[in-house]
């Protein structure tokens, strides 16, 4: 364990489709087991549904689908990261989340062009931990982008996200 400079922040590390992501601990309200989200009609396809967390009904986002992967199955290792930002509370479903790490601001390097794919839009940068790359997510950015993505999807009908949710 190395001691980091005062500029470092605590992050929660989570796994998603084989990659490791990092989310600022301050943005996370809590970690929960993933229950059974109730699908909401006419919501974007990557919204798995609504779940109840601490007496509040909040959307549960399938982060896999948000980043363009298959939904996958939820198991005992899956976690719901409850994030709070800008007055909104949203759950993010990830494959697993167990470790914490401190990352200093200067460790976070800009995302190389064309590397991160779909999730690149929500990445603040990449940090390296030995062999592992940590994809650092910007939570406020993630949710703001979601809202505007929703709007841009509303303008054109081609993505038709909801019909993809349940193929008939």
């Amino acid at each position, binding site marked *: 364990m190395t001691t980091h400079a005062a500029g470092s922040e605590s992050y929660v590390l989570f796994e998603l489709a084989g990659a490791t992501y990092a989310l600022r601990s301050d943005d996370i309200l809590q970690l929960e087991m993933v229950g059974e989200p109730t699908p*909401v009609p006419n919501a*974007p*396809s990557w919204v798995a549904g609504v779940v*109840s967390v601490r*007496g509040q*009904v909040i959307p549960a986002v399938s982060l896999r689908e948000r980043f363009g992967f298959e939904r996958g199955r939820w198991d005992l290792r899956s976690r719901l990261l409850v994030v709070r930002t800008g007055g909104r509370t949203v759950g993010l479903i990830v494959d697993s989340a167990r470790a914490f790490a401190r990352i200093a601001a200067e460790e976070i390097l800009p995302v190389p062009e064309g590397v991160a794919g779909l999730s690149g839009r929500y990445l603040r940068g990449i940090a390296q931990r030995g062999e592992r790359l940590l994809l650092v997510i910007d939570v406020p950015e993630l949710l703001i982008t979601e809202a505007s993505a929703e709007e841009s999807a509303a303008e054109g009908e081609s993505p*038709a996200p909801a*019909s993809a949710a349940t193929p008939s």
Partner: protein
Amino acid sequence: MSEGGFFEQFIDEYFAECDEHLAAARHALLDLESALGRPAAPGVVQELLRSLHTLKGLSGMVGVSSAERLAHAIEESIRARLRPGVDTTAATMDTLFASVDLLERCILARRTEGAPPDIAPMLDRLAAGAPGPAAEREPAAPTPDAAPPLPPDADAGDGIVQHFEFVPTRELTERGVGVDAIRARLRSIGELLDAKPRVVAGGISFDFWVSVAPGKVPDEAWRADGLSWIALAPAPAGEPAPAPASQAFVTTGANVVRVDLGRLDGVMRLVADLVVSRSRLDDLLRQDGARSTATRDALEENNALMQRQLRRLREAVMRIRLVPVGEVFERLRFAVRDAARESGKRVNLQLRGQNTEIDKLLVDRMLEPLLHLVRNAVSHGIEHPDARVARGKPPEGTLTLRATAVGDRIRVDVEDDGAGIDVARVEARARARGLLAANESLGAEALLDVLCASGFSTRDEADLTSGRGVGMDVVRSTIRSLAGELSLFSTPGGGTRFVVELPLTLMIVDALLVEVGGQQMAVPQPALREIVKVERSQIVPFENNDVIPWRGGMLPLLSLARLFQLPDPRLPSVHLLVVGTEAAPMGLVVDRLLGLREIVVHPVVDPLVAVEGISGATELGDGRVSLILDATAIVRLAQEERTARAWSGASANVAPPPRVGPAAPPLPS
């Protein structure tokens, strides 16, 4: 839903109210008895009459005729025997006490569905003591209320509401001072809120309620003209409710009104309707860009004002429902004593924050989970006295129940100074049940998750007090269904603290639970016009939608499975929920009816899931969330969609109506 159910509910209220009025009548009789040998105090007699009058009316309404007749006879007898200036006799009091006892037995007979007692001898006895002419003194018409009734809106307006009484006489009429003249005079000092004639002994009088304008006072000379009032000190500015004025009307001792929760819910629903109407105003204001700036500003300002007022109104109504949490704590006291005795432990129960207030509905519902936590604390948490002494603790364990208000939530701590939770043992059991991988250990959050896993128990043998491991999962799901949350803090050897957090108040509606494509959904009962069961073969595909012959016309149908893109099991028979307006009804097709239930409404506000057609969500206790359908919005969406489709022909790629969003209406393929 049935008539019977409604009546049964009503009759429970009848019994509750009767108890209250019987108690009040007895109280008044005791008062009168203490003044034996003197004329009865008119105030007490009026109170007694009012109780009996109410008992008569209530009994008449629910058809308990023996009670109705008896209450009437007692009333008559009191009017005859306890007249002003007539001394009260012991015989009269004996008769009245006996008659009220009999009245109670009449009501009890209805309650226990037994035979009503014979009231004939008592009717004779009551009539016997009554001097004949009494009946003529009193108006034969429905007995008037002895005290002036409360005006409908005594607190309206900004001024002080003052009560005036006018007793017309022939002499006054000859002088030209009639009701109209009085009315004009009162209008000169403020706004006339209400006026009612009242029958009094020997004639008629008029009650007026006037919202007296600031700075105005009634002319003392009016007192000579048959007008009377109680002089009031002006209320300090900014204090809306003039307490002295209301005391002038209310003659009963306590300043407490018993209100049925259902009525409050009704008020709350009206408030909710208002909130919706106002937000519609918001929409309109936003759309309308053409108006002049001045008008627009004025409208905006008004709209903002209304929003603030509505919020205050909502809060005020919610406050009415709050009761102290202490009543639940008191009930837990017995549970603790019993559990301690059964387990041979010594427990000192500490109660804190009993005056913290919480919604009446929650108070009743939080009892069960708290009961369980308290029993657990005694049977699992606190050690036997010997064990405690061996650990250097006092032999008597301490269990603390503490309520605190935290913002708009209430927090109840159940804390014991016992052994704490044996994490290693919980981990072992969790591994044995496959809840935990071999190399994993339990964090604080996961510990509670495991304890609350269905059927989990750390006890090898179930004991009498804490059951068979069906505990914590039920506790947590109950708390969650009340929009609350449970958390756990445990120190090995030092104790355990469970924290229950609940909202201060809840929105609860009656809803019909239905199943659509394997999912449960809730439809608020007020939206339902009718429920019809039909065979699928009766459904006729017609142009863009299915219809069914109904009441001589056609009822358009909307498949909720299709709307929600759920698999349709194509059951041979389905249920139609008829919703919409009388002029434009629509049948929502559902697979099954699961029954009526009271549900807690959770708002669904995040833009990701705030879709039209869903008015909220509820948790039914199994941890899963069910959506609450907004029938009005669904009907509107369906009609908009139909219109849109009609315009664009049969194309399957119709652009959805603009307000619906990208995922909008399912299109038949």
